[in-house]
């Protein structure tokens, strides 16, 4: 897929939206205006956006507890997301999901997931649907380094390879599983190596570089659509904030985070490369920054003004019938 100027601007807009959305949530929670367990995606924007740039309406993604970025990258509207996080009736899940279960089936987004690793078989199932119904679609699972220690990861990869499913497994290795460094709990140096156990194709991308993720994900997705089976794509990335909003970060050296933020911020790197190559103008990006900020301010105002769910709705949406 060619990265036209239009596509680049769209990718930047999505990355900026994710970053600003997460910064806004942090403010709102710390100001006591928003409740819930929130896990922020800031720092990892290039992964979600680099992968989802290849996806369309026939494709599905399954996500994690750190799922806002995947929603935005897959095209879920921020107004509905913000209303959801405020627990409003106008929320994309009518205020029943919240941050850890935010989803939009209409956008091919199978949900954030409060259970580490549980989105992986859901995406595998979506890939099975795509294969049997011959939709040409792919199922994409985003998950963290921690989830690669779960049985659901291993069982899913094994099944997907047996069945040559059109699936992509994107491990976002951000170096930390909650408060524990990845190398303490993952004995292989690259999680991509785990694909070898399942004779699965694997690739490693710089998860702080949109262009690298875009290229590697594109190859993998093309492979899947061709019928050549799944790929495990490891994106080396970094979680700019703590595990959750309110995390004291006592376990992580300050210098480490600063170094990543200063040298490898995915938005800054995108801008440098795209502007230096003459693909986009810095002015275009600044204009997008302003539009995104205004859009999010409007989303917050609308969410704050939106009606609360009806108490009777605690009983609805449990079953389709009966």
């Amino acid at each position: 897929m060619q990265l036209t100027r239009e596509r680049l601007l769209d990718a930047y807009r999505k990355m900026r939206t994710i970053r600003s959305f997460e910064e806004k949530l942090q403010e709102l929670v710390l100001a006591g205006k928003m409740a819930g367990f929130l896990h922020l995606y800031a720092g990892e924007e290039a992964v979600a956006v680099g992968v989802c740039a290849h996806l369309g309406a026939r494709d599905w993604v399954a996500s994690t507890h750190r799922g806002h970025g995947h929603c935005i990258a897959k095209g879920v509207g921020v107004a509905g997301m913000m209303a959801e996080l405020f627990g409003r009736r106008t929320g994309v899940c009518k205020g029943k999901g919240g941050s850890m279960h935010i989803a939009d089936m209409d956008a091919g987004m199978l949900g954030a997931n409060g259970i580490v690793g549980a989105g992986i078989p859901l995406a595998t199932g979506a890939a099975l649907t795509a294969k049997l119904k011959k939709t040409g679609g792919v199922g994409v699972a985003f998950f963290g380094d921690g989830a690669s220690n779960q049985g659901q990861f291993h069982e899913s990869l094994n099944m997907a390879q047996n069945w040559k499913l059109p699936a992509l497994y994107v491990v976002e290795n951000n170096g930390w599983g909650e408060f524990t460094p990845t190398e303490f709990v993952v004995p292989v140096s690259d999680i991509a190596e785990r694909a070898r156990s399942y004779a699965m194709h694997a690739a490693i991308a710089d998860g702080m570089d949109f262009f690298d993720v875009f290229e590697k994900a594109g190859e993998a997705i093309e492979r899947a659509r061709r019928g050549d089976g799944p790929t495990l794509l490891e994106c080396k990335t970094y979680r700019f904030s703590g595990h959750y909003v309110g995390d004291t970060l006592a376990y992580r050296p300050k210098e480490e985070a600063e170094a990543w933020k200063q040298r490898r911020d995915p938005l800054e790197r995108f801008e440098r490369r795209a502007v230096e190559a003459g693909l986009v103008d810095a002015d275009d990006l600044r204009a997008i920054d302003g539009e995104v900020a205004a859009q999010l301010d409007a989303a917050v105002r609308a969410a704050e003004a939106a009606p609360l769910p009806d108490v009777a709705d605690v009983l609805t949406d449990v079953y389709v019938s009966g």
Partner: protein
Amino acid sequence: MPRILSTGQAINEALAIAMESDPDVILLGEDVAGGGAREAEGTDEMGGVLGTTKGLVKRFPERVLDTPISEMGILGTAVGAAATGLRPVAELMFIDFLGVCLDPLLNQAAKLRYMFGGKARVPLTVRTVCGAGMRAAAQHSQSLYWMTAGIPGLKTVIPSNPADAKGLLLAAIRDDDPVVFCEAKGVLMQRGDVPEGDYTLPIGQAKVVRAGGDVTLVGFGATVAVALAAADALAQDGTQAEVLDLRSLAPLDEAAILGSLEKTGRLVVVDESTPRCGIASDVAALCVDKGFDFLNAPVRRVTAPHTPVPFAAILEDAFRPDAAKVVAAVREMG
């Protein structure tokens, strides 16, 4: 003209009808084909460990999928497939294996629709064998339907005979919610008249299988036969028992239970599972909550004891509810 089939054959027939009538229905599980579609190698299919799915892979080669022994992967993949457009029937060989794969049912299938504000549909059926009686001991004999029946968002059904098995399975597969379909071992071996063709039974409706005015015996799955045998014995000394087959554990047909209790004033519930936090306790609680004024005697529960399922025949037989225990419970009510 009766058409006598085993419950296993009736289930097989329901699966074939479901797959024939809807191209989105798939069957996946361990050995559901099992050697099928490889006849060139001189093999024949097994159709699962109890042979229930035999013959299906030949008719639907692309839709009967053998899986690795990965129950969490099977159920998790089936949930994802159900949410995205297929109508999978996943086989969990024995309900005891819920121990390694509860998450896809508990936290995914049961909750996606609710968490997503009504946008998701998970038309998944999980077929699973439960119950004691085959000398399979503690890890292959449990009756854990109380676990799935206790999870909002799931439905749980359990037929007591071949004809109901066919109709309930077709209803489960065509239901847009996740349904756990329990195949009690005591019922799988049963034979009985099974109507031809395509029919469904409504999920959530119990059935009076024997009418009587003196006491209500509530059974489901394998304990319906136990209750009927007890009713025969009680009739000999003039006690007319009404036997109610729940057929569905979630939703529970409260009106049918309370209606029979209103008529008889006395109720015994027979459950082959253990006594704590189970279906029998639920039925007893319902009678107290909503049927207290109908009660002429305390509700009695006849269940297995609060132990694992033992192996030796004499122990397993002692573990299971039987007609004598039900009769004794009725007599003790006075």
